[in-house]
């Protein structure tokens, strides 16, 4: 741009962008792989003009000037083509000649992401590395007065229950009188949370399902996976593997025509039905699958036309009170499977979560409560929702659990926690902390994508283009050219790696606490934190 040309308010310089491309001329062979792989076309082959001055030590007339052109990589500064920091260029470059670097200053870029009055939408996460869960330590180590157990050699039963567990007296009574006893599933406490077929690519979904099937059938780990709101492929609905699947229904009811019609053909009951009322990444907002990703296959499974955005309403539209929203819907879903399948709601963590929980305690058909905290991820949402809406998970889980303890129902309605578990890579420690605060298990989403499929998103606003269908790893894309990059078999292998290593780490946490025969739900005396206010709030020990 010439110095005397008009500039618009949104004209940006490289320094205004969140990520800057560092390109090394001396190493680049101009092979073009980086420009080809860039998901947002942030870089292009550029022609640069250079003036060379040769000054003479003799006469002025001997000075020479010459011009040359050279080719290189140019970073664009337009908003849609701003570098997202995914570093696919660095991955593709055979010569280590290029990489994106985060802007250490304040990128002005953010002030302009509202062109045509449309605020920024993105996928991913809250983009905050802070984690209270990471601060929690396990302090009640068994030392001499009672022996620490051997994580490698003692027997362990790290299982959780999903389902309404009757109080012992009532359970005995119904056994005696052959009364109805609510279905209860014994599951592994680490659950793959709802990520829909549509939000995820077919190869990613297939990989997850294969991994889950392997964990169950070969390793005997009862791992469960939620479908998210997007239906379920018809063959899976009619297969024996359905028992490992939690079918999710949400306010858009996408895919439920297919599911209802498949009920008579189901060989197995699904593990459970999850009714999604909210998610932690965008509480009070519905699901969103943007038009880029609604191709023929997705449209068919969801029962919608191709190429349109699919925003689910923030609430279930036909229902206007908690009685209908929760009680009737849970009862209807239970009835659809002959009261053999646990049905539970999933809500965003909120200061109103207790009200939902109290309602559930009085509903005989409510099987559990899943609570998703502010650090939950999403495939698409408004940035403002992701960044500023929601409730931290730890105190929400604690409040809900202690409320159940108060009314004596802590074993009756299991609470599952989601959102930000393992956000900085400490998955087992985060999960164990939540379990000891009162959760019966945890749901993970982003962690699976990162660990099992190599999602490159981080808490530093890296990539975050899941909504656009251009996922450079093929995890959240519906474009075959992209999702072919992801080999389902390898994803499955990594899912297995993830769960097996998590299991070892979980044992390495609970064994020194002297626990092995049951999941230490609510074992809050094991926890400590070096933040006095947090310790008081969570009712755990303050340690410094």
């Amino acid at each position: 741009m010439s110095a005397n040309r008009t500039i618009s308010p949104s004209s940006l310089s490289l320094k205004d962008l969140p990520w800057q491309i560092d390109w090394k001329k001396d190493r680049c062979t101009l092979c073009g792989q980086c420009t080809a792989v860039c998901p947002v076309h942030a870089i292009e082959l550029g022609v640069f003009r250079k003036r060379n001055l040769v000054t003479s030590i003799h006469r002025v007339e001997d000075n020479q000037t010459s011009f040359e052109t050279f080719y290189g990589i140019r970073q664009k500064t337009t908003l849609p083509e701003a570098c997202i920091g995914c570093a696919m260029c660095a991955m593709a470059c055979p010569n280590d000649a290029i990489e994106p670097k985060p802007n250490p200053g304040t990128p002005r870029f953010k002030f302009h992401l509202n062109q045509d009055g449309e605020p920024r939408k993105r996928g991913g996460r809250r983009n905050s590395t802070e984690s209270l869960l990471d601060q929690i330590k396990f302090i009640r180590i068994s030392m001499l007065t009672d022996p620490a157990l051997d994580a490698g050699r003692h027997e362990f039963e790290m299982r959780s229950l999903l389902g309404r567990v009757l109080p012992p007296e009532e359970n005995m009574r119904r056994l005696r009188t052959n009364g109805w006893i609510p279905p209860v599933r014994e599951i592994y406490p680490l659950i793959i949370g709802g990520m829909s077929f549509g939000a995820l690519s077919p190869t990613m979904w297939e990989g997850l399902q294969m991994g889950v099937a392997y964990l169950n059938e070969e390793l005997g780990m009862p791992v469960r996976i939620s479908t998210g709101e997007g239906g379920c492929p018809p063959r899976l609905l009619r297969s024996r593997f359905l028992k490992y699947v939690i079918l999710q229904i949400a306010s858009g009811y996408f895919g439920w025509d297919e599911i209802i019609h498949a009920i008579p053909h189901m060989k197995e009951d699904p593990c459970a039905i999850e009714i999604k009322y909210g998610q932690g990444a965008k509480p009070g907002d519905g699901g969103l699958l943007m038009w880029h990703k609604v191709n023929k296959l997705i449209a068919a499974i969801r029962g919608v036309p191709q190429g349109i955005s699919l925003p689910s309403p923030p609430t279930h539209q036909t229902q206007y009170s908690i009685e209908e929203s929760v009680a009737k819907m849970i009862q209807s879903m239970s009835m659809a499977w002959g009261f053999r399948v646990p049905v539970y709601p999933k809500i965003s963590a909120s200061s109103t979560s207790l009200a939902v929980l109290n309602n559930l305690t009085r509903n005989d058909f409510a099987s559990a409560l899943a609570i998703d905290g502010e650090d939950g991820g999403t495939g698409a949402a408004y940035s403002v929702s992701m960044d500023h809406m929601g409730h931290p998970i730890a105190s929400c889980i604690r409040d809900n659990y202690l409320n159940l303890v108060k009314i004596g129902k802590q074993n009756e309605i299991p609470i599952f926690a989601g959102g930000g578990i393992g956000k900085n890579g400490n998955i087992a420690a985060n999960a164990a902390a939540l379990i000891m605060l009162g959760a019966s298990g945890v749901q993970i989403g982003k962690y699976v994508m990162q660990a099992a499929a190599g999602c490159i998103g981080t808490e530093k606003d890296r990539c975050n283009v899941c909504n656009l269908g251009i996922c450079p790893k093929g995890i959240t894309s519906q474009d075959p050219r992209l999702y072919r990059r992801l080999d389902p078999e390898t994803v499955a292998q990594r899912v297995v790696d993830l769960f097996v290593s998590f299991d070892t780490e979980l044992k390495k946490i609970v064994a020194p606490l002297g626990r092995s025969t049951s999941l230490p739900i609510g074992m809050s005396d094991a926890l400590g934190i070096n933040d006095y206010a947090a310790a008081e709030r969570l009712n755990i020990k303050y340690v410094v």
Partner: protein
Amino acid sequence: MCRLFALTSKEPVSPMEAIKALDVMKEGHDGSGVGIMLRDLGGPFEEMKDAPILSGIFTEEGIRRLDLFMMDQGFMTKYKVSIKVPKTNTSGIPRRGLYLIRAYEYPEHWDGLDKGEVERRLMMTRLKIREMGEEKRDMIVFSFWPDTIMLKELGDPMDVGHYLGLDRKDLKARVIMAQGRQNTNYAIDLYACHPFFIKGFTTMTNGENTAFIPIKDFLSSRDYPGYTGYQSDSEVFAHILHYAMEGLGLGLDAYKHVMTPLQDKHLEKHPDASFLKHLKQSCRQLIIDGPNCVIGTLPDNTLFMAQDRKKLRPGVVGGRPGMFAFSSEICGLDAVIPDRDKSRDIQPMHLDTAIVSPDRQEVKICRQTEPLALPL
């Protein structure tokens, strides 16, 4: 790790027998406390099997308040044992007020009440006295139940035995439990001394209870007034026993299924698999993780020993028809019943509950893999 000793004998014996056993197991306790429970009493109490006996420690003011309270309730003193302690101090034993063992006549207006209601009222009376005592720190009450005496004090068991004069002739019982305490995590509090008692169910344990908090939370939220206290993490073992047997109507053979349920692959092969699966799930918060050896008595004076799932604590049962003893160590058994057939000693393992019923003829081993005597 504390040391435990319990015996059941056809003939009443002195509690010093149990103290003797604790003394030979001295390495395992540090004089931070001893607790003794006597049941199926001999001597003068033989004649008043139904009269509730109050056991505790009271200051002079406490005794006055107790008497007023008991008279208000309509209880009349029927018989008492006065324990006179020496005037000189014994090292490690604090000076306290009066060690009280007093049998009462039931209030007249309790006549005609059914057994369950009488038992409930006895428990509520004990809890009330405890509450009053905690308020002014002038009364400590261990039990208030027919045919039951409990004594607890800090100090070396043998010293405490002599200090309290437990070798006296009028103090004899057929069922005796005693524990020498090893102080660990909790401040020394007499309410933290084993054995623990609730409505005729008594247990004592060694080892920490790593699952204490979830179990305590579950019991405390049962809306049952007796599930309180918990100065010791072992008190829950007595309450779990009471809950399983009186609350759920299960037999002693189910106690271990509540605390240490079978793992799934063994559970599926059990003849009562379906029942046990429901029990395991609905009582999940009562699962213990050890390391514990639990010795207990039931209201009918059955004596038992159960181990944690990994059998991390020692425990041995031996004796002869007419007299059996349960001990943390074999030397404790040798001290009290030297003339038994030692080849028949039993060390219960991770699936076992060793039971000696009130007829004291044999040790029955109840394995968790065996069918249950279900109340269904």
